[in-house]
């Protein structure tokens, strides 16, 4: 399925090459050594056929007249050269593995560090799967290309040049044969590659469509069953299936011509060499040993030329991969904190928003003009329909995004003048999407406060009503949580993140649908804990269930980017506006 990317063409070849070169230059001496080794091992290997030709000439003298001293002399040298060449090849491979290992490590690290430094907004608009494929698949592609293609190209160049010169030395006339066969095989493979390329990408596209269809239908199988759509679905599947196997066959139809065709051209070269070599022998301008050497060199000569088409494709796809990697690396990081910024210390928790305007993209303004004051220790609730911009307010408070106009102040300081670390650390938050990582429960709970003691952790877990569940697990607090969360329910995850927030001693708290996955009864049980958590803190609460926010000091009703109403529960009920309507709907 990855094939479709394989034929992607790099867009900015020069820039990519420069950046890739930057990585390679760090290892320039090792690379130089590698190239020297390549030349060395290939030259050694090139001597082989020449030596065997001499040996054969010594044999050719005929029955009873073989010059054994000559045969052994050349055979001895052959052994030395071949072993030497193989030894160099091994050293070379080890060296290349080392270099590519270092490059891979550095590239992955750089990409990951970039990911950590990117503004949160990047992840809102880029798919996780895509980012992951850059840091894994794309870097691997670049890496394998560095370790194999580079060597292949340089050794191909040496081999082709070397064997060409050798053949030229043996018999310039015979070399003329290649004037026909080499262009023929290059043209042929180019023609076939051009012909098959769209077929192969069609093949992977069709397979991708089939797989997508299967995934969709199997996921919805229960629904299809209830509506008796099995046969109908099978019919649709048959069409997709037929398309997929036919696309596969069509690609193979031409693809399977490549090897036999190249093989054919090689065989034709061999035939020509045999015929003309024999003729030259008859005229007396070539010995049998020379014909033998020539045949061996011709095999060496045509090998890399056939490979070239493949290598070129590989290089092209690895350049495209490198470009994707560098595109990510060249994204703008979150602006660094400057020296003028101050740390937010001894936080009180006064928050003021002043004429804030914000939009993710210019066409759709999410927040038009928002002003509010939250005194330290107050509870601010934000309600409104989905997509009204509730979560956006949180994003702005935490400075995951910056306002377009207007400003936000904490304790009288404009947030732009505060270091991000100190600002963010002064908030604790529990979000609707609970985040649990692969690690023990203890590690997950102390994620925000590494020096927390076991006693503190247990206390927080007890308050969040999750302690007894943990205590009943065989490994207790050392239980490893799996990332897909199969060993723990959504509600329990949310309780864990509440416990995590309790361990922090932040002065400001954000609860974004913090109990949406907890059932009503458990929610009631942890109410006391939540009250504890919220005590003496400035709290921002987003909730669906209106019952949870009735005692808020200020309720903001948000709709389509504007605060349409604000006030306490009683005030808003009296007004009989949006809030009142929403409230009434609960009882209808």
């Amino acid at each position, binding site marked *: 399925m990855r094939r479709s990317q394989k034929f992607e063409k790099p867009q900015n070849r020069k820039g990519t090459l420069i950046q890739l070169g930057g990585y390679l230059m760090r290892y320039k001496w090792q690379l130089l050594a590698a190239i020297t080794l390549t030349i060395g091992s290939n030259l050694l290997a090139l001597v082989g056929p020449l030596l065997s030709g001499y040996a054969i000439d010594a044999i050719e003298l005929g029955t009873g007249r073989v010059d054994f001293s000559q045969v052994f002399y050349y055979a001895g040298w052959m052994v030395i050269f071949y072993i030497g060449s193989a030894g160099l090849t091994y050293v070379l491979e080890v060296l290349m593995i080392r270099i590519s290992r270092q490059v891979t490590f550095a590239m992955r690290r750089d990409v990951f560090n970039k990911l950590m430094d990117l503004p949160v907004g990047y992840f809102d608009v880029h798919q996780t799967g895509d980012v992951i494929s850059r840091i894994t698949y794309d870097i691997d592609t670049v890496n394998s290309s560095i370790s194999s293609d580079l060597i292949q190209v340089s050794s191909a160049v040496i081999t082709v040049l070397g064997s060409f010169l050798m053949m030229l030395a043996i018999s310039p006339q015979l070399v003329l044969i290649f004037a026909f066969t080499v262009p023929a095989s290059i043209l042929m493979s180019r023609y076939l590659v051009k012909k098959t390329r769209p077929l192969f990408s069609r093949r992977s596209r069709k397979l991708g469509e089939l*797989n997508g269809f299967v995934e*969709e239908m199997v996921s919805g199988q229960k629904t299809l069953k209830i509506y008796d*759509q099995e046969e109908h679905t099978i019919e649709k599947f048959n069409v997709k299936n037929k398309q997929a196997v036919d696309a596969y066959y069509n690609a193979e139809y031409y693809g399977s011509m490549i090897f036999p065709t190249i093989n054919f051209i090689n065989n034709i070269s061999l035939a020509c060499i045999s015929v003309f070599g024999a003729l030259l022998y008859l005229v007396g301008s070539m010995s049998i040993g020379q014909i033998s050497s020539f045949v061996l060199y011709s095999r060496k000569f045509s090998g890399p030329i056939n490979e070239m088409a493949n290598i070129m494709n590989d290089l092209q796809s690895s350049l495209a991969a490198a470009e994707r990697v560098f595109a990510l690396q060249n994204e703008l990081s979150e602006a660094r904190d400057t020296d003028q910024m101050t740390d937010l210390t001894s936080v009180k928790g006064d928050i003021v928003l002043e004429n804030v305007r914000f939009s993710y993209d210019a066409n759709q303004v999410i927040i038009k003009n928002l002003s509010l004051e939250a005194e330290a220790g107050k509870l601010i609730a934000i309600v409104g329909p989905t997509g009204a911009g509730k979560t956006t307010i949180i994003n702005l408070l935490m400075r995951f995004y910056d306002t377009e106009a207007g400003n936000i102040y904490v304790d009288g300081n404009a947030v732009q003048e505060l270091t991000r670390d100190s600002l963010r650390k002064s908030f604790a938050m529990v979000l609707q999407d609970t985040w649990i990582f692969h690690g023990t429960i203890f590690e997950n709970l102390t*994620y925000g406060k590494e020096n927390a003691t076991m006693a503190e952790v247990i206390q927080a877990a007890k308050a969040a009503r999750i302690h007894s569940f943990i205590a009943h697990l065989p490994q207790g607090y050392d239980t490893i949580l799996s990332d897909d969360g199969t060993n723990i329910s959504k509600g329990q995850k949310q309780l864990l993140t509440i416990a995590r927030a309790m361990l922090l001693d932040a002065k400001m708290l954000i609860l974004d649908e913090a109990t949406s996955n907890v059932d009503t009864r458990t929610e009631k049980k942890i109410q006391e804990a939540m009250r504890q958590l919220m005590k003496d803190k400035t709290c921002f609460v987003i909730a669906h269930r209106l019952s949870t926010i009735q005692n808020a000091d200020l309720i903001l009703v948000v709709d389509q980017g504007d605060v349409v109403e604000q006030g306490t529960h009683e005030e808003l009920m009296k007004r009989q506006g949006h809030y009142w309507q929403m409230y009434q709907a609960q009882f209808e």
Partner: protein
Amino acid sequence: MKKIITEYLKPFYGRMAIGIFFKFTGSIMDLIIPSILALIIDQVIPLNQPAPIFYWGGVMVVCAIIGMVFNIIANRMAARVASDATEIIRHDLFARVIYFSNHQMDTLTKPSVISRLTADTYIVHQMIIRIQRLGVRAPIMLVGGIIITMTLDPGLAMVLIGIMPVMMLIIILVSRKSMPLFAGLQQALDGFVRVVREDINGIRVIKALSKTDYEKNRFDTINTDVVNREKKARMTVAVISPAMNICLNLGLVSVVVVGAYGVNNGTSEVGIILAFMTYFTIILHAVLALSKLFEMWPKATASAERIIQALDSVDILAVQEVTEDGETVKDDAFVAFQNVTFSYNKEEPNLDNISFALAKGETLGIIGETGAGKTTLLNLLMRLYDADAGSITIAGRDIRSIDPRELHQKFGVVFQNDMIFEATIEENIDLGRNLSKEAIKKAIVCAGAKAFVDEKADKSGEQLTIKGANLSGGQKQRILIARALAASPEILVLDDASSALDYQTDAAFRKAIKENFDDTTIIIVAQRISSIKHADHILVLEDGVAIGYGKHKHLMKSCEIYREISHSQMGVS
């Protein structure tokens, strides 16, 4: 793999035989060509005439042409056979899977079923091609090469035969050593991807807690581990290529030396030595190709077994055709549960002794905590599972005696996390049932979807993306509700179908149903009291047991848990 070959490839045996014949002949041609070279040098050149040289050169060209044409034909036939066979395998598997009972799907799990249909069939497809190509060519080249060299010069052939076990041994040793290394690498890579995925998903938390440096260090550790494993695995494999080269080339030297004795004794000729050198290369490539085939074999076998396992999976529900139990149920009860008990693992019951009866047009609300058995109850009603004890009847008939097709037609359902398919809005509602335009329109209106559907550029013809990604949660639910309503079902089942609707929309929707689908019996599972408050009957479940049954007012008095839920949601104390 065996069953795939004996069952699915059997119809193609004839075509495969023809393909193999072409492959065989084509490969033989490749083998003959070098021996013609030997012939030219040893027998034709001494004649001192150009004509025979051209003649034999011509033979070589003819052989080359036959080789090319036959190989291409064989390759194409192999591809055709593989494609046709794969088409049938996939079709059978999909046709089987789509009829899977819930129980079967639970055992195999959906992701596994999907990967069997996609990745596994693909691997088998490739294997079928390779068996016909490499699997035929490589042995022919290997055996044929050895036979020809034997006839040319048995003594020299011994050199070749002697060196092959050494090469085999090296390949086996190296792959035995590298296999666990690669497996370990794969595991480390999975962990690596997990860290990246986790950190991307948790980026807000990480930034909020200023843990980016911590995460960078965590990543460095696993990055180092992966890279070191990569290095070790690849270093091991790196031995193969130089080792093979040494074997090959030392073999060549031996051929020269042994050949020298042969020529000296008059038992061999120079041309033969030359031909040997070419055969050496051919045979080496055959050995390498075979070793690749052996590498693929375990993987393909595993895939084939996974496919067969799914094909052979038995459905425990399908065969149970229960005879009528006699009409024991009261006439006015349209849908009735009588002492129904059920357990997924047949140990602890998930539903315990549940009874209720609904008249036509009545509404039942079911409420309870997650895991209380609400969805299980619905699954039993639609006979996605069979009850362990008790009976479920619709219009007086035991549901086990109703043809599944007939049974399903009574229902309109919205499941929890139900699927929106990649199709137009209209197709999603119709879902292949060929409903009338009016019915679909009416359903859209009743489900409260008209407003946003009309806003779309193509109205109800608007194309939806996979899983309805271009709709909001509430919009998706409204489309699903419209789907359930469109065929005017006798029984409407809504499993937590209004959770993404705000209170106002939810209320309007309930009103519309009351007005337009008065005859329809409705069963609603909900988290919100407000969604079920007006139901004719309300069932309160806890751990599979009915702890309350009756109307809202009644339950407010008699059922403590119901009251508790109600108070916490309505905010009245």
